């Protein structure tokens, strides 16, 4: 029942908000949403205590028969892979609701959509039925489209439509692959049972896996399907960016791990070398593109493309260590990118620009944004993988786990990781260090004025919380590892036993 509550709270909350008979002012809507999300977070924390960390399989399973003729049953479960993501979702949706301060227009709709997205993401992470996952995956599409296109920046219509089309295509690819998978076994079954060569030829498996990979690759996003992401981020408001980068992209990597690797182990081990190369290309492309950006938000967005590529590399290697690293990477990327997007949002709100050619010396303690600047430096360090923070642990595990299997791809990804340091140092160096420019740097850009005095500590509380948790995971990785390890180990075991079992002709 606990898992169902995780869905019911946001969905019923959204319903309640939308049906509230009187006009709802912004403050009430926001507070209601925050209270609901706090309850959701507490419930997710309760799941940790109910969770048996030694068991690598699905736990707390619950279900109902729904549409049996369609093979669509309501079945939920949680394991070490989905639990951290459910937690991240609870934390980041709460943070997004807290930082949604200036939603003057249509607050009711805004917070409803936020709750729906949170519920849908929970549902997708918890589903034990392919069609149920697809339902939740599609459910999150329209609310996010609305969040971008109603509360976004000036070019929001274009960005939102692009997001919509890319994600809709991704959904259709995934549905096609799921249908193919379900019928491959002979009997229609949308439960999560891996497919073997006995049921489906290797060619068919590779075809379906490719559809699945492209579908989720759009969502992750991986090069060359990433083009919607920078646009969507640039036009989305700060809370939406937090959600998008922190939670929704994880649907893609989760899908690759759970459905790509988990359901097509044989085809996966055939494709793995190619996937590692693809991951390395994606990492390098994301990092290089980030260097070229002058918009801070676009830079962070491209860094997401790079950093999510690591997860694919780790999944391709599929060793226990690399898989553990991939979960760490998902969690730490969620926290770090959310932190960075929030800080960029603060800068944008204070200065009215995100242009790195214009911003200078924001770290100035008198008239600048010293707290924001400090947090930004911390976030950037974490993202570049400096020891003592979450980014370091995940990258270390990732590269350590992958290098034996794919040395070249791993080395290339490490170069990408080094490039992270380059572009984020550029960002910090340009925007925060140096003299605070009172006169315009660029004569065409107009005078730069700091409109809002340095934000209060309370306003920065969410950022501080996120920064704190980044350091917490960095210093005490066991907290996360203990939850996840048994699940990733059993996944890796599936892959390694398989490579022994496979007939010689099939192994790569």
């Amino acid at each position, binding site marked *: 029942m606990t898992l169902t509550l995780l869905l019911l709270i946001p969905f019923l909350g959204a319903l309640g908000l939308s049906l509230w008979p009187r006009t709802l002012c912004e403050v009430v809507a926001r507070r209601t949403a925050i209270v609901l999300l706090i309850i959701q977070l507490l419930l997710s924390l309760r799941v940790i205590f109910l969770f048996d960390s030694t068991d690598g399989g699905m736990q707390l399973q619950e279900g109902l028969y729904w549409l049996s003729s369609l093979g669509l049953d309501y079945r939920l479960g949680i394991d070490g892979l989905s639990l951290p993501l459910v937690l991240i979702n609870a934390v980041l949706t709460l943070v997004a609701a807290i930082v949604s301060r200036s939603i003057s227009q249509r607050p009711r709709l805004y917070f409803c959509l936020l709750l729906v997205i949170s519920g849908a993401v929970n549902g997708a992470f918890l589903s034990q039925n392919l069609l149920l996952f697809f339902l939740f995956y599609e459910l999150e599409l329209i609310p996010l489209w609305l969040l971008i296109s109603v509360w976004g920046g000036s070019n929001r219509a274009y960005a939102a439509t692009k997001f919509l089309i890319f994600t809709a295509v991704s959904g259709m690819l995934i549905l*096609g692959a799921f249908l193919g998978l379900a019928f491959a076994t002979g009997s229609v079954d949308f439960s999560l049972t891996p497919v073997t060569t006995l049921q489906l030829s290797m060619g068919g498996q590779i075809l379906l896996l490719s559809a699945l990979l492209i579908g989720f690759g759009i969502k992750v996003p991986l090069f060359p399907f990433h083009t919607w992401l920078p646009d969507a981020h640039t036009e989305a408001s700060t809370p939406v960016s937090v959600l998008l980068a922190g939670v929704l992209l994880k649907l893609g990597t989760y899908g690759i791990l759970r459905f790509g690797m988990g359901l097509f182990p044989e085809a996966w081990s055939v494709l793995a070398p190619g996937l590692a190369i693809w991951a390395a290309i994606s990492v390098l492309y994301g990092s290089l593109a980030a260097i070229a950006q002058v918009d801070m938000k676009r830079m962070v967005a491209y860094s997401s493309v790079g950093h999510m590529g690591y997860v694919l590399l780790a999944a391709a290697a599929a060793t226990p260590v690399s898989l553990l690293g991939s979960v760490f990477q998902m969690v730490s990327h969620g926290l770090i990118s959310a932190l960075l997007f929030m800080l960029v949002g603060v800068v944008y709100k204070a200065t009215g620009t995100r242009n790195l050619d214009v911003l200078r010396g924001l770290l100035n303690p008198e008239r600048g944004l010293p707290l924001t600047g400090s947090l930004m430096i911390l976030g950037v360090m974490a993202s570049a993988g400096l020891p003592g923070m979450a980014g370091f642990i995940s990258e270390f595990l990732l590269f350590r786990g992958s290098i034996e299997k794919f040395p070249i791809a791993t080395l290339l990804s490490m170069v990408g990781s080094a490039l992270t340091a380059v572009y984020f140092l550029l960002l910090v160096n340009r925007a925060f260090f140096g003299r605070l420019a009172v006169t315009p740097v660029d004569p065409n850009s107009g005078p730069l004025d700091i409109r809002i005095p340095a934000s209060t500590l309370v306003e920065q509380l969410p950022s501080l919380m996120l920064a704190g948790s980044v350091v917490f995971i960095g210093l005490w990785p066991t907290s996360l590892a203990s939850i996840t390890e048994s699940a990733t180990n059993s996944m890796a075991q599936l892959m390694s036993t398989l490579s022994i079992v496979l007939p010689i002709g099939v192994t790569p």
Partner: protein
Amino acid sequence: MPTLLADLGGAGLGMPSMGDLSLQLNAGAIAPEVAVLLALLISLLVDLAGEKAASRWVPPICYGGLGAALVLLALQWNSPLAPSFFGGFLADNLAVAFRAVVAASTLITLLLSWRYVERSGTPVGEYAAILLAATVGAMILCGSTDLVSIFISLETLSVSSYLLAGYMKRDARSSEAALKYLLVGSAAAAVFLYGASLLYGITGGATDLASIAVALQTSAKPVAALSLVFVLATVAFKIAAVPFHQWTPDVYEGSPTPVVAFLSVGSKAAGFALALRILVGCFESFNEQWKLLFTVLALLSMVLGNVVALAQTSMKRMLAYSSIGQAGFVMIGMVCGTEDGFAAMVLYMASYLFMNLGAFACIILFSLRTGSDRIADYAGLYQKDPLITLGLSLCLLSLGGIPPMLGFFGKIYLFFAGWADHQYLLVVVGLITSVVSIYYYISVIKMMVVKEPQEASDVVKEYPAITWNLAGMPSLRAALVGCVLVTAVGGILSNPLFMWASSTVAGTPILQQAIAASGGGAAALG
């Protein structure tokens, strides 16, 4: 009645006694149609008493007739099968299900119509009578199992539809739509008749579908194929499949909007019932041929309907092309010819009833308030009319197959059935075109929801105050809210609907035969 005469001649050999005759007539099967017919006659009589009495009494009479028809249909559900009118009509579950869809679509259409008709200043009683006549035709068509009864009911439906399309006499566009519909429709009927006459000839004088099916197995292939093409063209015309769709956008744009609502659901449902009866029930020995042709039609419909819909600026025209695309999706179920395929068809028609009529309810309401039908005029509507905005958004999302709406489950079921039957091409094209369809449905929602107040269209800026107290408005609101509710919640609670769809297939002998045949074929292949 006509079939009775046609077959009395046929039954002349045995010369049944009167007791046998009433038994063989089995006229109880058309009790629902009789209820509608009675409502029609009473409406016409009431109409004689003057316009005032008509607008007071015609609506309850129609509700009574259609409600009684629905109740009688429910009573026929799963009842023992016996052919009526010497094989002219069969009230199997397929017929009951599709007749229920037709009757429900008429009921909802009437709820939507009163205000519209009243405002256009045309007589209410006549309008209701013609619509009910079309309903009787469509309902009998769903259960017809004889070429003669098919022809008569098809023409009853068609001729009434022409009249409905041209009901706005003073509007040249309405007359033009009616004339185009009439010319194309009559030509299609003539083509059907030519095919039927060939069938009559090559089967050695049989007009009922069961004996034709038997005779076709041994008859001359080329002529039979020719008659198949003729009959299929007419069926495709009725369900507006590409390339027999050209009439649809024009007729939809020119006709009164409530009529379009009926044509897009009721008439189309009857067309699909006809398609099932003739193609599945009769041309079984040409399974491969008609399935191939239907696959092509489905592909063309999905692609052309959905792609051309992108470019439309008129709401009704956009929905016309979208309905062509939707018909393409439904045809996937028919091509499969499996249990799931047929069930998915029935399910999708039922969900299409609610989502499409819900969308039409919103469009009718909008055009009543503003007189406009252009998509661009919906800009910024959320501020002025949240009900239309919400209702139209939900219905369009459902048509686009977004969860958790009803349309999502219907569409998934169609794709599921298609994939199970290895119709990969159809399913893949269906998936791609539903992305396209999401795009144009969303762009309407974008107009309504996303546009800022300052970007609102002139029509919306001068939006009248919302009142519901005019005659005919409460019923319109009831229909709108009802359809939208079913569309939004029906998906999650769609289990009974799935049961209903599968028992429709289970209670229909011709479908069971087809399933057994295709199952046997698959087993032979395997």
